[in-house]
C-alpha cells in the first residue's frame, strides 16, 4: 500500500462519511481496509449506520438505502478527484422524494467542478436542472432530440 493510496483512502473515507450524513440526514459511514498486507488481495469493506439504526455491513439495507450509500461513495470519489464529466442514468429511480431532494442538493454542490448529465423520469430532478432535453421515438422508430424550456414541463 503506497503513501499516495493511503492519503487518498483517508480523504475518500472522510468525504464518504460527510456525504452519507448529508443524504441520510445523520448516521455514519466508514471504509475499512481489509487484507492490507497482501498486496493484490487488499480490499475495502463498507460499514454504515443509518440514523437511529444498528450498524450494518450492507446486507440489511433497503433498496433506496443501498442506492443512497452507493451515491454517497461516488460523490466522495468525485469530490476527492473530480472527473470533468459525469453521466448518471436513472440513479434516482429507487429514491423517495425527500432523498431525491438531498441527492440534488449535493449534485448542485459538485456541479461547480463537474458537468452532470442526468437521465431521469423524476419531476423533481428535471425542475432542478439548468437545461432539459427530451428524447422521443418517431413513427419510424428512430430517436429525435428536442431542447425543452423548463416552463414547458411544469404545466
Amino acid at each position, binding site marked *: 500500500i503506497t503513501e499516495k493510496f493511503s492519503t487518498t483512502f483517508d480523504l475518500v473515507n472522510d468525504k464518504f462519511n460527510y456525504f452519507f450524513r448529508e443524504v441520510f440526514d445523520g448516521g455514519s459511514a466508514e471504509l475499512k481496509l481489509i487484507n492490507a498486507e497482501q498486496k493484490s488481495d487488499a480490499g475495502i469493506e463498507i460499514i454504515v449506520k443509518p440514523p437511529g439504526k444498528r450498524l450494518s455491513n450492507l446486507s440489511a439495507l433497503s433498496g433506496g438505502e443501498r442506492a443512497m450509500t452507493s451515491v454517497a461513495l461516488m460523490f466522495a470519489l468525485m469530490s476527492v478527484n473530480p472527473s470533468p464529466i459525469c*453521466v448518471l442514468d436513472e440513479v434516482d429511480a429507487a429514491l423517495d422524494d425527500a432523498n431525491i431532494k438531498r441527492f440534488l442538493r449535493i449534485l448542485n454542490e459538485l456541479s461547480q467542478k463537474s458537468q452532470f448529465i442526468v437521465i431521469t423520469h423524476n419531476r423533481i430532478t428535471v425542475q432542478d436542472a439548468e437545461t432539459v432535453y427530451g428524447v422521443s421515438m418517431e413513427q419510424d422508430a428512430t430517436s429525435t432530440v428536442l431542447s425543452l424550456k423548463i416552463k414547458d414541463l411544469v404545466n
Partner: protein
Amino acid sequence: MYLRKLSLHGFKAFAGTQEFDFTSGTTAIIGPNGSGKSNVADAIRWVFGEQSNKNIRAKKTEDVIFFGSDTRRSMGLAEVTVVLDNEDKWLPLDFAEVSITRRAHRSGDNEYLINGKKVRHGDVLALLNKANMHQNSYAFVSQGLADKIIELKPFERRTLIEEAA
C-alpha cells in the same frame, strides 16, 4: 473542460443526425420508455473509446449501427462526435475546443478522429487520461446499477480508490 456538443448519426436508434448543446451545469434528459435516453449515455461512453461491448449494451461492434425499422432501412455506419470546451485549458492543449469522433462500419472497423485528424484508439485514451477521465470511472453510472459501487467485491473497490489517487 465540459462537453459542449454531442452529435449522433446512425448510432443505435439515432438514424438521422441529432445534436445536443450542453452547458457546463446540470442537464436532464427525459423521455418515454424505449425512446433512446440510455443510448445517449452509451454514445458518450463509446465516443470516449469504450472497448467493452457489455458497457454499451452491445454483443458485437455492429450492434451500435442503426439496424432499421418497419419503415426505415438499416445503415452502414454509426458516427458520434463530441466537442469539448477547453477554455479553462484543463486539457494540456493549445485549443479552446477539442472534437473527438468515432465511427463504426458494418465491416467491424472502428475509426477515431481528434479535431478531424485520424488517430489511433490509444491516442483518444491518452488524451482523456490527461483530462482525468479514465475508462472504468466512477463517473459513469448505468441504468439499474445505482448501487453498483456497493455491489463490487472488496478488491474491486480498492481499484476505485487507486483510480482516484
